[in-house]
């Protein structure tokens, strides 16, 4: 068994002053076979699918519009985001996995590691707002 921990990161919010978020680091494979190291990805068990902003998506898959087009919706009524679905290769420590990922048409989104074929592959512990631990078995 191997595990990797990330301390929650303090961020500014409009209402609460500072909030701490479960942000993790992850590698993502680009279309030319190199790895990009991404910091501050939100580990979000409420998200069905992982999400990357457009610029990162273009480094990862090239032409993002080749993926299946979907409208992504969240908790905000009427708000929707156009995304293109691609299989993307991620790496946490030395564990690689391929997950369906929504690549946004916009850059104005926060990258998210969601559940399907991503967080659901691991035992993930959110420890009292202090740290996120990903346990790889």
């Amino acid at each position, binding site marked *: 068994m191997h595990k990797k921990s990330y301390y929650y990161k303090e961020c500014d919010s409009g209402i609460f002053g500072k909030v701490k978020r479960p942000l993790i680091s992850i590698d993502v494979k680009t279309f030319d076979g190199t790895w990009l190291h991404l910091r501050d990805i939100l580990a979000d068990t409420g998200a069905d699918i992982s999400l990357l902003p457009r610029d990162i998506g273009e480094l990862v898959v090239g032409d993002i519009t080749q993926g299946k087009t979907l409208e992504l919706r969240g908790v905000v009524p009427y708000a929707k985001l156009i995304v293109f679905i691609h299989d993307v290769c991620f790496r946490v420590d030395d564990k690689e996995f391929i997950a369906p990922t929504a690549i946004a048409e916009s850059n104005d989104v926060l*990258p998210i590691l969601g559940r399907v074929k991503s967080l659901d592959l691991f035992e993930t512990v959110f420890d009292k707002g202090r740290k996120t631990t990903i346990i790889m078995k």
Partner: protein
Amino acid sequence: MSEKTYEYVIYAGNKPVLKGKNLKKLLEEASLKYKNRKISISWKSPEGVLIA
């Protein structure tokens, strides 16, 4: 009203070294300036954004 958009923050090792909105340009600059250090990408959220 100011535009509320994300900015990229480029790290060399554990130190933030570049910030801006043009990711490709930032990565090119970082790879030239910080050849022997691990380059990573982060984000700075616009102020006053809550994530639900």
